């Protein structure tokens, strides 16, 4: 046991968690806790940017068959945390656990298997097994070609197609390795009894209010060695703080669910929280109006981080829709005109308080293939060009009611679908202003979030908002959203373009390279030309920590790496008791 | 000198704001004294300011619109009350000075048991334990003649008859043996036997505790019996005051003289009763001479027949159980067209209940009421609707029965609208004005609210409301008891005229046996819910058969 049980880190979640079974829940906050309790085969280097994979339970894989076969060597001597289910025995992690874990992820009986897309349709023999499990228990024991424990410590995964992203998937919190005995022992209640190999264990859980983790005494201890490689950058300040320490250092992680930005901000201010990830937009602007801490906040010695997230928000058209969809010139013109009417700069500065980047392509920062210099040269705010285009392609105001009609004077009204419960009024106002400026009637329809999802995934909408965050840091994870054959729940805009699809097939099967990057840019140009999406922003998040917290650095995968943190307990006491 | 006077009322001016600039001066400089250990009677026309002067002593006039002129003085045991703080004055109330209010029903708190209300006043002023206070409350109720006081202390005011409520008020007022008892019409709702008992009680208190009583009443016989001094009031000024004997035997003021002359007597039944104005104007000799003959003949057409009527109340006892109180047991009678049936009887004997039940204002447990050949009790609400206009009741508690948010105008127009009497509101208003005048109220009353009237005035409003409909049958429940002799005569004359003109029939409930004798053709005597005697008026008064009737007649003041 290396952790100091006297130290406690206080932090918070801005939304409630669901449960701590990696295969069953897909919400972000459960994932955050899972990533500290469970370990995947691989992990991202804590400080390296861009995101770089490093060994965790296993060494970096051996890649065979041009990216179709991956062999992972699991480090021997890694044990699960103690649990009654192990009947007092130490339980080592083996390759068989990996096979079980992956099968659980696709088992439709684990609450619909929210993560199954990571493996479904990819692994040899797996889909047949899924099919067989419909309304029946999943047969975990039947061996398949795709998933094999070659020996006690060697795991092999075989794919139908090359996929260089498979190692990333093996680093996702969802692939945290679980022990079959535990899962079977707790059955339906598995989410309340997480048992993993990670640095922390669940100590107490008041659902949707407070989660307390304690250091796992069985944990082997971890020392940070920065990854090396081409173009890899390491935050040296933090690296210094980590140097020579064995982690985890902090005995207890106390997480509260605090759902309003002000509450978490005030709790941080008075020292009730040690770290404050994801500051509210207006607070971010308050402490750092020009993107650096100012005034009294500077003098407090806070650690301040402003990081681009690996995500994008966008508006999408349903390309199958009779009015806004289609590839005919006048349809392209209509969408282009709408894109012209959208004021991205205002969205960024006024709605997002400058906490973002104006998105230029379907990609997000912090991922392979993202080009920070690439510009969407067709996307500018220009209602006059929008009006010009509409005039040219026959969208005239036939009945002189102030609104344009479709060519041939059929009525034109575009419906924007959004969900109830969220406050999207600013966005809606901005959209509406744009539409008004080009004389197109916009109808805003609010519905249940589930209904919105259904409409989007089922293609029964015209115009809606979307957002995507990385599952793994590669452009493919984003471009799949516009890939023709994915039209449906993945490609919700149902964009189909032969050139784009061809390029996608290529990039999906090749490792990162400059040539691949150019292909990605070409794909972005095609999207810009046909406008299935109107790009919104890539979010920037501000994170702060008190001076007594060392080793803090937010990571783009958004998983908290509490086990790298340390606290100066004396300073913490002083800071909290003021 | 002052030491002999308990209370001196000096130059008391009281006025009420009516509108923004309009005021009404109810007392215009009133002076009188209440000596220690004496009974002072305040008599005078209804609405002359008797209650107001009593209320002024207690500091109970509505603060919102009352103005007491600064030159007024109220000297109680040498201290000017008007110069005292509200708190000091309140401390006197209940203990040194207490009051019996005119309108017992609205004056009792409807949500507390009567016993608790008596206990409250006892415990406010005396160091009594709860149990002891309760014990005392029972005694007090017994003293004021409430039968079965041990259970009665658990009744709520609305479960008691008018007279019973009045006696509760009296019990409350005498509970702490005050130095001054103000009794505002304390006996109007009491039958003569009980009245006698109460008067004796008061006299006893006067003797044992040296109590003084300010006695407000219309009953001049009663005044003569008990009062040491008499103060005669008229329209806010004092017309005459002096020792009782002197006022009665040698009245100086013409108004007093007129008032005394108007007293109805049990042995005369003039065609028309004289009123004060007749005497004031010297017209008393122009009144039609001769006597009215009363009585019902077998040949008289019957409008209403009541057969074996029964009414039982269920009274809650504890949370889940209840007991039954038979208020009316098996009453039958016939009412002839154009005749009056007087109903008399002990307080609480079921007279009001009988009246209400006939009009279906209560449910009933048995019996029939035949009107126009139909049993009214078996009709549905809808079928009964058209009969409502033909049968009316003047309630015993006029104040409670007047909608507090309605002006008198609204109250009078309402029934005419409901029954479509007259075509326009203008005609209706005219009709209402006429009626007001006939019951002795002036035009201004039209726009006033019930709480702005004196007790007698409210009673006249109630009468006028019923008369708007010219019903065939009218139940008058103690309808003239709060009126001074003159107004009473005026109202009785009016009733008589209507009867002569339209052939109306009356059920006349009253404790005033003189009045009953005067107006009734037949009389029904009730006791404990039972009909004990039913006969032609003259016959009954001449030869009462039942012991109770005999007792009753013997108790008439001025007779014994």
């Amino acid at each position: 046991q290396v952790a100091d049980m006297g130290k406690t880190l206080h932090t918070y979640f801005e939304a409630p968690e669901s449960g701590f079974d990696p295969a069953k829940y897909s919400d972000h906050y459960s994932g955050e806790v899972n990533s500290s309790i469970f370990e995947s085969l691989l992990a991202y280097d804590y400080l390296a940017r861009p995101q770089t994979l490093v060994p965790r339970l296993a060494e970096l894989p051996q890649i065979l068959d041009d990216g179709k076969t991956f062999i992972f060597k699991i480090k021997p001597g890694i044990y699960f945390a103690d649990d009654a289910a192990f009947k007092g025995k130490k339980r080592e992690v083996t390759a068989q656990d990996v096979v079980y874990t992956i099968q659980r992820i696709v088992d439709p009986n684990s609450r619909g298997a929210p993560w199954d897309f990571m493996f479904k349709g990819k692994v040899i023999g797996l889909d047949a097994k899924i099919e067989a499990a419909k309304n029946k228990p999943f047969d975990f024991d039947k061996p398949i070609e795709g998933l094999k424990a070659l020996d006690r410590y060697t795991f092999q995964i075989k794919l139908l197609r090359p996929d260089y992203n498979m190692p990333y998937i093996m680093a996702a919190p969802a692939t945290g390795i679980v022990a079959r005995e535990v899962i079977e022992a707790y059955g339906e209640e598995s989410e309340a009894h997480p048992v993993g190999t990670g640095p922390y264990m669940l100590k107490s859980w008041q659902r949707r209010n407070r989660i307390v983790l304690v250091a796992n005494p069985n944990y082997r201890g971890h020392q940070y060695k920065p990854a090396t490689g081409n173009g890899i950058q390491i935050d040296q300040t933090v690296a210094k703080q980590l140097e020579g320490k064995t982690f985890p250092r902090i005995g207890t992680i106390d997480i509260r669910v605090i759902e309003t930005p002000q509450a978490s901000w005030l709790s941080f201010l008075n020292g009730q929280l040690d770290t404050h990830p994801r500051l509210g937009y207006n607070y971010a602007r308050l402490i750092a109006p020009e993107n650096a801490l100012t005034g009294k906040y500077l003098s407090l010695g806070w650690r301040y981080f402003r990081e681009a997230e690996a995500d994008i928000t966008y508006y999408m058209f349903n390309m199958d829709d009779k009015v806004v969809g289609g590839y005919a010139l006048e349809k392209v013109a209509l969408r282009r005109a709408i894109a012209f009417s959208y004021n991205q700069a205002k969205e960024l500065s006024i709605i997002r308080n400058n906490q973002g980047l104006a998105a230029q392509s379907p990609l997000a920062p912090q991922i392979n293939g993202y080009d920070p210099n690439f510009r969407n040269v067709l996307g500018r705010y220009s209602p006059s060009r929008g009006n010009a285009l509409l005039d040219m392609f026959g969208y005239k105001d036939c009945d002189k009611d102030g609104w344009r009609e479709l060519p041939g004077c059929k009525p034109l009204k575009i419906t924007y679908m959004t969900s109830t419960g969220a406050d999207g009024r600013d966005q809606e106002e901005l959209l509406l202003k744009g539409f008004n400026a080009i004389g197109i009637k916009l109808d805003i329809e609010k519905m249940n979030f589930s209904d919105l999802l259904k409409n989007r995934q089922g293609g029964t909408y015209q115009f809606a908002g979307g957002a995507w965050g990385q599952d793994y840091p590669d452009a493919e994870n984003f471009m799949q959203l516009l890939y023709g054959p994915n039209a449906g729940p993945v490609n919700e805009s149902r964009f189909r373009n032969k050139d784009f699809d061809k390029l996608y097939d290529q990039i999906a099967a090749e490792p990162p390279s400059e040539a691949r990057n150019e292909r990605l840019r070409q794909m972005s140009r095609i999207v810009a030309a046909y406008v299935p999406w109107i790009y919104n922003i890539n979010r920037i998040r501000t994170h702060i920590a008190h001076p007594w917290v060392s080793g803090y650095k937010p990571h783009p995968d958004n998983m908290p790496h509490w086990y790298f943190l340390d606290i100066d307990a004396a300073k913490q006491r002083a800071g909290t008791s003021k | 000198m002052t030491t002999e006077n308990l209370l001196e009322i000096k130059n008391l001016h009281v006025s009420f704001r009516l509108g923004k600039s309009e005021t009404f001066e109810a007392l215009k400089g009133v002076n009188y004294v209440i000596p220690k250990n004496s009974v002072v009677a305040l008599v005078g026309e209804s609405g002359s300011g008797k209650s107001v002067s009593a209320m002024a002593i207690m500091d109970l006039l509505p603060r919102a619109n009352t103005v007491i002129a600064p030159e007024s003085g109220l000297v109680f045991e040498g201290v000017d009350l008007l110069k005292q703080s509200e708190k000091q004055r309140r401390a006197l109330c209940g203990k040194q000075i207490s009051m019996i209010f005119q309108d017992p029903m609205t004056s009792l708190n409807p949500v507390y048991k009567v016993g608790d209300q008596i206990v409250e006043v006892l415990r406010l002023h005396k160091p009594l334990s709860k149990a002891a206070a309760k014990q005392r409350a029972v005694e007090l109720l017994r003293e004021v003649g409430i039968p079965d006081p041990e259970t009665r202390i658990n009744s709520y005011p609305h479960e008691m008859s008018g007279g019973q409520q009045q006696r509760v008020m009296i019990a409350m007022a005498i509970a702490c043996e005050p130095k001054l008892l103000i009794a505002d019409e304390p006996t109007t709702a009491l039958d003569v036997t009980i009245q006698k008992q109460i008067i004796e009680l008061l006299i006893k208190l006067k003797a044992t505790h040296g109590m003084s009583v300010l006695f407000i009443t219309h009953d001049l016989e009663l005044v003569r019996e008990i009062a040491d001094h008499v103060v005669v009031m008229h329209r806010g000024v004092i017309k005459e005051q002096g020792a009782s004997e002197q006022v009665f035997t040698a009245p100086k003021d013409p108004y007093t003289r007129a008032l005394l002359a108007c007293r109805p007597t049990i042995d005369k039944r003039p065609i028309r009763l004289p009123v004060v104005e007749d005497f004031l104007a010297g017209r008393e000799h122009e009144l039609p001479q001769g006597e009215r003959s009363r009585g019902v003949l077998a040949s008289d057409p019957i409008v209403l027949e009541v057969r074996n009527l029964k009414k039982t109340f269920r009274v809650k006892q504890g949370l889940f159980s209840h007991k039954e109180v038979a208020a009316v047991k098996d009453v039958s009678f016939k009412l002839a067209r154009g005749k009056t049936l007087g109903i008399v009887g002990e307080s609480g004997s079921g007279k009001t209940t009988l009246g209400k039940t006939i009009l279906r204002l209560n449910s009933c447990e048995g019996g029939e009421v035949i009107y126009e050949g139909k049993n009214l009790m078996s009709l549905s609400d809808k079928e009964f609707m058209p009969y409502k206009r033909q049968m009316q009741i003047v309630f015993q508690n006029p104040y409670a029965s007047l909608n507090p948010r309605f002006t008198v105008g609204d109250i009078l127009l309402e029934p005419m609208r409901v029954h479509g009497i007259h075509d326009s509101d203008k005609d209706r208003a005219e009709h209402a004005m006429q009626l007001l005048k006939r019951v002795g109220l002036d035009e201004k009353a039209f726009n006033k609210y019930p709480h702005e009237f004196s007790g007698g005035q409210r009673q006249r409003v109630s009468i006028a409301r019923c008369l708007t409909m010219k019903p065939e049958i009218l139940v008058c429940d103690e309808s003239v008891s709060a009126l001074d002799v003159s107004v009473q005569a005026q109202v009785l004359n009016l009733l008589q005229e209507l009867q002569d003109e339209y052939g109306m029939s009356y059920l006349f409930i009253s404790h005033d046996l003189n009045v009953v004798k005067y107006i009734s053709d037949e009389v029904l005597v009730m006791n404990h819910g039972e009909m004990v005697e039913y006969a032609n008026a003259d016959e009954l008064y001449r030869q009462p058969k039942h012991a109770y009737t005999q007792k009753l007649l013997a108790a008439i003041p001025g007779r014994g």
Partner: protein
Amino acid sequence: MSAYLLRRIWQMIPTLAGVILLVFFLFNVFGGDPAAILAGKIASKEKIEAIRDQLGLNAPIWVQLWIFVKQVFTFDFGNSWSTNEAVSAIILQKAPVSLTVMLQVWLLDAIIAVTLAVAVAYKRGSLTDRAVMGICTAAMSISLLLYVVVGQWLLGYKLEIFPVLGWSDDLWTNVSTYAPLPILLLLFVSVAPSLRLYRSFVVEETSHDYARTARAKGASEHRVMFVHVLRNAAVPIVTNLAMALPGLFVGSFVVEMVFSIPGLGKEIVTAVLRSDFPVIKAITVYLAILTMVVNLLVDLLYKWLDPRVELK
């Protein structure tokens, strides 16, 4: 009386039936499809169907309804669709939390509002009266959210009178440290309307003659107002207080949200937003039963408070 009671209790059955049918209908038509949310990021049609199968949403309507009815009579509403937690556990855990805050609010609100109402009603029409009522109305016009946000900042952070937020397992800690600020802020918005209402009821009674009698007995003004007048004004006051009773268990969404109080208020809103039908069903049914019981008690109370009331 007992017949009346029996009738009222008997009537709970059609009411429950109505509640069941209405909630069932509303949820099925307007409640949204939980499967779409549960399915996660990328949800194919088959997947949603599979989840619907698992949740029993594809069973015939009458079967689902029958399950609901059974649940009502066994008081077992199964597990939450979105968190898989037993619904009974959710309610047992969260309702007491809400109650800890709301019961105090309710009591304090009643005491403060009634006392103040009597005081200003006595001074009716005076400057104090007008001023208090004016301030109350003005205070009422501001939304709870703003009070809570500003209160948390000012009283919690700036003046450090209360903790900014928090909740513990210990009832006493909660009552003494964490609950006071939320309670105070809730009172800000709740007292004003109650006060206005109660003042009106009390004013209505002060001019009755029985108050005059009480004064004539020598009762202090205090006693006249609180013992005599108040009891007569009690029927509507009790009505108003009772109306708020079922809500005590449900808590206040805004306050729970801002102060991180793990109460039922948040739970209901999220349940509806996430289409978590088992939770909705349970809360609705419990609320219905509570409402009915409270209403029955209140009607009985009417009779006790005002003996002239007849229960028909």
